[in-house]
């Protein structure tokens, strides 16, 4: 064999890999570093001239001294604690419901899939009108039962809950798909065996379904948390972080600081913090997925 042949052999996989690899480095990895770098820079627009000053950690110092930042961290925390358990338990419940035998199960499953294909901005716009305090369908409907109209998105107390409803409507069917796939992977012989042993349905769930579904649930838990952590479409379209900052999550605060107030140092400091937290969440994901892959080998 000629050396030329070996050289070509060596380089072939890298050539196949190059376009996707370059794109990943350029558009996924590099922006993280831009974000970090720019978070050390203060930009001012004195007299229409853009001036950039390297200020080290000053942006972060201002950020940590700002009650608005802590408020928005708090809202992010509350949202995370509320929305993820709600979505995961509903997804699991729905997946279990849809495992039941029925003549119509195919069409029922298909109908439940509808929100998967409806983009979040669409869901947001439609639900925004559904929850309209004056002409919304929800207030019209609950009026049938004598319940007075609710303010929903324009109320400090209900806005975050309304956003949870919107994101959950969109999210449950999506995460349910992963749990349904996990459920269908469980060998049916296990249930036959436990039937012979006289197990009750709850025991089946507790000792067969749950342990074997653990990995799917963990995957959904981590992926759902990462997704909701950057949830801001409803805030951009409907609430603008209000009323009274009640829906101003961190990711929206980053967006607003940059695009409304041109305070890029602040915006990118928050972005960098968000990326850092996301990476921690991904660390968990790596851990669980690693476990999953070992299992399969």
């Amino acid at each position, binding site marked *: 064999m000629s050396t030329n042949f070996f050289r070509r052999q060596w380089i072939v996989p890298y050539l196949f890999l190059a376009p996707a690899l370059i794109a990943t480095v350029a558009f996924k990895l590099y922006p993280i570093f831009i974000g970090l770098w720019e978070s050390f820079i203060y930009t001012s627009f004195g007299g229409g001239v853009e001036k950039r000053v390297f200020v080290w950690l000053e942006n972060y110092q201002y950020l940590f001294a700002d009650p608005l930042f802590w408020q928005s961290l708090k809202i992010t925390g509350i949202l995370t604690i509320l929305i993820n358990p709600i979505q995961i338990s509903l997804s699991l419940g729905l997946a279990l419901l849809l495992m039941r035998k029925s003549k119509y199960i195919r069409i029922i499953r298909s109908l439940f899939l509808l929100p998967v294909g409806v983009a979040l*901005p669409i869901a947001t716009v439609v639900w925004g009108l559904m929850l309209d305090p*004056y002409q919304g369908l929800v207030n*019209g409907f609950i009026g049938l039962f004598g319940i007075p109209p609710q303010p929903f998105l324009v109320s400090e107390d209900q806005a975050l809950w309304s956003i949870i409803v919107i994101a959950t409507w969109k999210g449950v069917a999506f995460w349910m798909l992963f749990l349904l796939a996990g459920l269908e992977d469980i060998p049916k012989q296990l249930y036959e065996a436990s039937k012979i042993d006289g197990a009750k349905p709850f025991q089946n769930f507790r000792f067969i379904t749950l342990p074997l579904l653990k990995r799917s649930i963990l995957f959904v838990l981590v992926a759902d948390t990462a997704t909701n952590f950057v949830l801001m479409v409803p805030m951009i379209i409907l609430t603008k972080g209000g009323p009274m900052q009640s829906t101003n999550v961190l990711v929206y605060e980053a967006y607003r600081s940059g695009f409304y107030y041109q305070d890029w140092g602040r915006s990118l400091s928050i972005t960098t913090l968000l990326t850092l937290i996301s990476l921690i969440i991904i660390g968990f994901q790596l851990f669980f997925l690693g476990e999953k892959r070992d299992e399969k080998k």
Partner: protein
Amino acid sequence: MLLRHIKINWPIYAWYFVILIGLMITVIPFWWALSSSFKDNVTIFAEVSPFSFKSLIPGTSLDPYYGIFMKGFGRAMLNTLFVSVASVLGGLLINSMAGFAFAQFRFKGDNILFGFMILSFAVPADAIAIPLFKMMRQIGWFDTYYALIIPMLANGIIIFLFRQFFIGIPKELMEAARVDGLSWFGIYWKICIPLSKPVILGAGLLLFVFQWESFLWPLIAAPSPDKHLIQVVLARFSTEYAPIWNQQFAASTIAGLFPLIFIYIFQKQFVSALTGVEQK
């Protein structure tokens, strides 16, 4: 279905009751949007308060649709179609090549690179959208179609799908082709790609839906109206023309129905591609 035989001891009517409630919550918002998109606003408001079931019966007026196309919706649809098709073609090409590299070759750093590429897509795109926006300004792609398409091409899920599929192709087939003097690119292009129709369908559908549904990135990366994508225009309608409900519903209906049609036709492939589990 595998679990057909499991007896859940609650009566069937309780199951149907819960399913029915769930279906109502799932379907009614979109159905209401669809029905109202064929009505005038006065009718929509009158039927909702006080509530009448007429609000869930579709109207017959096409004016709302005429209205949105007067406001630039057609342009946004064409833009989205163009950007989506370009993303599907480009994305299928570069991700299948990467999948081929990971499936066919053992090379230095292969595991690390594979892990890196898969995990970098776990970083939520919305978290890096703002620095990516800064980067687009630096390289002069801001407010161009490049910005809408190229950063979205590489995708860890799609690489993973192709790798899994290519691993399943018998090695003998490729070795024989190698002996016959076919280049590696020839093997990829003439043997592997023609065999991978199912994964191309699923992966292409995913790429199409991702792009069709993208919102935050097109909103900040290409703000001029002539480059608006469909979700951006929809959001604009809901703020700029807030009182004109029927047109918001019409825009939502078109924007929603388009991917739904594809998803329902190829439901099996779509779900397989998304969850990575073969559908029975």
